[in-house]
């Protein structure tokens, strides 16, 4: 009897990331990507942002934001590419590339926030 797969791990991270993205990403993009750059809302000052980012809870939040976002995206991209481009036979390679890139991103995030 073949073993149960370890897919549970990336899948649960994908799920957790899916919530993170669904709840928190839209407002970030709306504010920092659209409204502030268009000048519709005054940009927050550097002093204010620095104080905010320096708060430990904000750092914890930003870590979750980036790490879960990356792991979610990696898992989904792995399956999207293999489905969309018929690359099922390259699943291992796609997995290594996708999760590898995500883990590099998580390392960068940790480096930045600690």
């Amino acid at each position, binding site marked *: 009897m073949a073993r149960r*797969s370890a897919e*549970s791990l990336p899948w649960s991270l994908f799920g957790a990331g899916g919530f993170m993205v669904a709840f928190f990403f839209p407002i970030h993009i709306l504010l920092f990507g659209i409204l502030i750059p268009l000048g519709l809302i005054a940009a927050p000052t550097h002093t204010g942002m620095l104080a905010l980012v320096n708060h430990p809870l904000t750092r914890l939040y930003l870590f979750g934001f980036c790490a879960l976002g990356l792991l979610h995206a990696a898992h989904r991209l792995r399956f999207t590419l293999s489905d969309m481009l018929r690359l099922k036979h390259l699943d291992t390679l796609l997995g290594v590339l996708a999760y590898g890139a995500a883990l590099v991103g998580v390392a960068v995030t940790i480096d930045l926030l600690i």
Partner: protein
Amino acid sequence: MADKITLEVARYSPEQDGEPRFDRYEVPLIENWMVLDALNYIKDQLDGTVTFRWSCRMGICGSCGMVVNGHERLTCETLLADYLPGPIRVEPLRHFPVMRDLVVDLSDFMEKLERVKPWIIRQPGAPEPSREFIQTPEQLAEYKQYSLCINCVLCYSACPVYGLDPHFIGPAASALSLRYNLDSRDQGAEQRLDVMAQHDGVWDCTVIGECSVVCPKHVDPSLAIQEYKISATKAWFKNLLMPGGGK
């Protein structure tokens, strides 16, 4: 209303053809005729070599599934008149090898169905009930939806993931497997999870959801697959925290 309608029927002869082709047949457009009635008219009156499967003509045996104008249908409950003015293109179900004309080889599905153990499993040594098992309406409601599956495999035909990777256990087998897990008389959930949690179990599903859309019995195989992913994940983390624990 027109009194005739044209069917374009996929034909493939394994002895002669390298590729399927389409043959056109004109059939009378009779009120309440189904696509299957038209196929039977063709076979009886126009061309006895057209090959297809059917049995009950009432949407319960699950053998008359075909792709009608690009969508999976039970042809015994698909009205000709819904496709006016025609033509109606009738093809075999997708992904399975075509044996002849509209008949596909279901061996792969049959193997998968058996693998997921769709029957009631009792632990060895479990006390024999002294009379029939009692089930409440609530206990029945738990699995009723899944038990309506008639193995017509329209869902496999509609599933691109199965088309891309035939190792994927697929929709109907997952639904029928979960049906027994949810049965109050059953004790085989662990054994079935062993099958479903493997690499070629439920993990390839990307929740496209077309299986549940095409199901003529309103079974929701997509939900069954996600429920299996959740059970597998719970068991995986439990095993991580307490290896071999709880057994």
